[in-house]
C-alpha cells in the first residue's frame, strides 16, 4: 500500500475533524498573535524592545510572529507523531490501524502532513501581513521563504520525532506524562523564541542534535540579515537534512520495535 493512499486517508481524517471544530481552526489562526503578544508582554517586563533589537538584531514583533509560526508548524508535526498512538489507543482505533496492511514507517511520515499544510496556510494570516507591514514588498518574499522553511523544518523533525515516539512507547508507563516533559524541552532547544547563538553552550550542543533547530537558525539569520552569504543558509539546511536522514533508520527501527512490543503485550481494545 502506497504513501499516497495513507496520505489521502490522513487528509480526510484531519480535514473532516478540523472543519467540525471551527473553534480550533479559529484558535489556530489567532495563535501566532496570541503567542507574540504573550512573549512581548512578558519580555517588556525584563527589557525594552530596543534592547531586544540590540541583542538579537531583529524587531520583536516580526521575530516572535515568525517564531510562533515556526513553533506551530514544527511542534504540530511532532505532536501528530507523538500523540496519535495514544489517541488511537484511547479511541479504540489502534487495533484497526495496526491490523491494516500499512507500512508503519510510511504511516508515521504521512501522519503530520495534512495538518502541516493547514498550519502553513495560517502563515498567510500571520507571517505575511506582519512582514509586509515591517518590510514592505520585500516582506512578501521573506514571508514566503519563512513559510517554506517552516514546512521544511517541520518535515526534517519527523524522523527524530519517530525515534522519540518509539522509545517512549517502548519504555511504557504513562507515556503522556513523559511527552508533557519532552515537549517544552524541545520547544526551548529548538531556539524559536530564544535564538541559538544566545543559548548557553550546553543547550547549544543539545540544540544542534535537533534537525529543525538549524532551519530555525537559518530563518533567524535571514531576518537579522547577519550574513549576506547564502552558503551559510545552505549549510544549515544541509545539516538539518543530514540529521533527518541520519535519524530515519533509527526512527524506523524505533517504531517497528514499539509495534513489536505492542504485539507481544497485546493491544487493548
Amino acid at each position, binding site marked *: *500500500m*502506497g504513501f499516497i*493512499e*495513507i496520505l*489521502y*486517508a490522513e487528509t*480526510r*481524517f484531519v480535514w*473532516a*475533524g478540523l472543519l*467540525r*471544530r471551527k473553534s480550533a481552526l479559529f484558535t489556530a489562526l489567532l495563535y501566532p498573535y496570541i503567542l507574540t503578544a504573550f512573549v512581548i508582554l512578558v519580555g517588556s517586563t525584563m527589557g525594552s524592545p530596543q534592547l531586544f533589537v540590540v541583542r538579537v538584531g531583529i524587531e520583536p514583533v516580526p521575530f516572535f510572529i515568525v517564531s510562533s509560526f515556526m513553533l506551530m508548524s514544527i511542534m504540530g508535526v511532532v505532536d501528530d507523531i507523538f500523540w496519535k498512538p495514544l489517541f488511537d489507543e484511547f*479511541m*479504540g*482505533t489502534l*487495533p*484497526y*490501524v*495496526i*491490523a*491494516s*496492511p*500499512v507500512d508503519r514507517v510510511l504511516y508515521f511520515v504521512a501522519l503530520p502532513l495534512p495538518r502541516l499544510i493547514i498550519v502553513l496556510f495560517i502563515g498567510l494570516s500571520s507571517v505575511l501581513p506582519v512582514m509586509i507591514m515591517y518590510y514592505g514588498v520585500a516582506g512578501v518574499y521573506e514571508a514566503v521563504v519563512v513559510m517554506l522553511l517552516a514546512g521544511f523544518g517541520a518535515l526534517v523533525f519527523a524522523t527524530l520525532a519517530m525515534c522519540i515516539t518509539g522509545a517512549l512507547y517502548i519504555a511504557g508507563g504513562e507515556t503522556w506524562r513523559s511527552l508533557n516533559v519532552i515537549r517544552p524541552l524541545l520547544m526551548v532547544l529548538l531556539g524559536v523564541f530564544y535564538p541559538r547563538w544566545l543559548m548557553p553552550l550546553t543547550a547549544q550542543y543539545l540544540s544542534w542534535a535537533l534537525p529543525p533547530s538549524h532551519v530555525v537558525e537559518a530563518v533567524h539569520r535571514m531576518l537579522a540579515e547577519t550574513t549576506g552569504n547564502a552558503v551559510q543558509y545552505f549549510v544549515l539546511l544541509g545539516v538539518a537534512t543530514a540529521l533527518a536522514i541520519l535519524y530515519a533508520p533509527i526512527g524506523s527501527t524505533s517504531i517497528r520495535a514499539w509495534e*513489536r512490543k505492542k*504485539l*507481544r*503485550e*497485546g*493491544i487493548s*481494545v
Partner: protein
Amino acid sequence: MAKAIVAKNVVKRYITRVRKGLVRSVKKIIEALRGVSFEVRHGEVVGLLGPNGAGKTTAVKIIATLLLPDDGEVYVEGFDVVREANEVRKRIGLLLSVEKGFYGKLTGRENLEYFGALYGIPRSVLRRRIDELMKLLELDKLGASSRLYEEYSLGMKARLGLARALLKDPPILLLDEPTLGLDPPSARKIRSVVKELARNGKAVLYTTHNMFEAEIVCDRILLINRGKIVAEGSPEELKSKIPQMRTVVVYVRGFNPNDVERVAELVGVKPSLGIDEEGFAMLKFQVRKPEEVLNDIVKGIAKLGCEIARLRIEEPTLEDVFLYFASR
C-alpha cells in the same frame, strides 16, 4: 470446504507485575492460551464460547495479527500470522468491540472512507462498497452516513463495526462479541448478515457469551475454558457429549406427594416433585436414556392409580453444555 484458519498448539502467556510493598514487584505469568488447536473452514460460522478470561479474545487477536503467540502456529489461508502478517491482514475483517473503534468527530461514511483508504481500497471501489454496506446493514435508513459517530446508538456502532470488517470484502471474518449489549433488532440484523455471509462462502470466527445466539448462528462451536479447547462440535454434537441426564417431565393428575418413594422403587429413578400452574404434580426424572425408562414411568404411575396429563422430554441446553465443560 477449504481451511481458512488453522491454529496448532497455540500458547500465549501474559506477564504482569504484582507490586509487593513500595519498590518490590513480583512477576506473574498468566497463561491465556495453553495449546489451543482448531480449524475454521470457508462457508461456516464457528463460535468460540467460553467464560470470561477463557482466552477467546486472545485467540481472536492472535489470528488478527494483533498479538504474537509464544508458541504454536496459526495460518490464515495458508499464511503464517507471525511471518506473513501483512498477507493475513489483507484477508481478514475484524470487529473487536462494538462500543468504540471509530473517530467520534467523523461521520460513519468518513470513518469507513478513512479505514478503507488505510486498507488500500481504491477510491472508486471504496465509495461503491460503502454504499452497498450501508444498505446491507440498513445504516442508510438510520441516517448513519451523515451523522457523527459520537452520536450513534450502540446498535449503529455495531453495524458500522461490521461494515468496516466487510469493507475489503475479506474471505475471513473475526467477530468478537458483535452483539454484546445490542437491542434485539440490531442483534438479529447482525446475526442474519453473518449467517448470510457464511452461506456465501466466508469463514466466520464468532465469539459470544450468548448461548441462544451461539446455537442459532454457529455451525460449529469451540468451547474454550482456562486457555484450552475443552469441546468442539455442532450444538447437537456438544449436547450429546455431556453425560448430563435428559429430563423426563411427567404431569400427573391426582398424585399423592407421599408416593414419591414408591415411584422411585417402581421406576428405579427417584423423581423430584413440583406443582405446575394448573395444579398437576410435576415429576422430573433425570435419566441418561429416556427411551429406556419411559415405559416403566408410565406403568409405575398407572400402578399408583394416577393419570398422566402430559409428558415431555427436556434435552440439555447449550448452557448446560457450557456449564458442564466450564466446571471441569
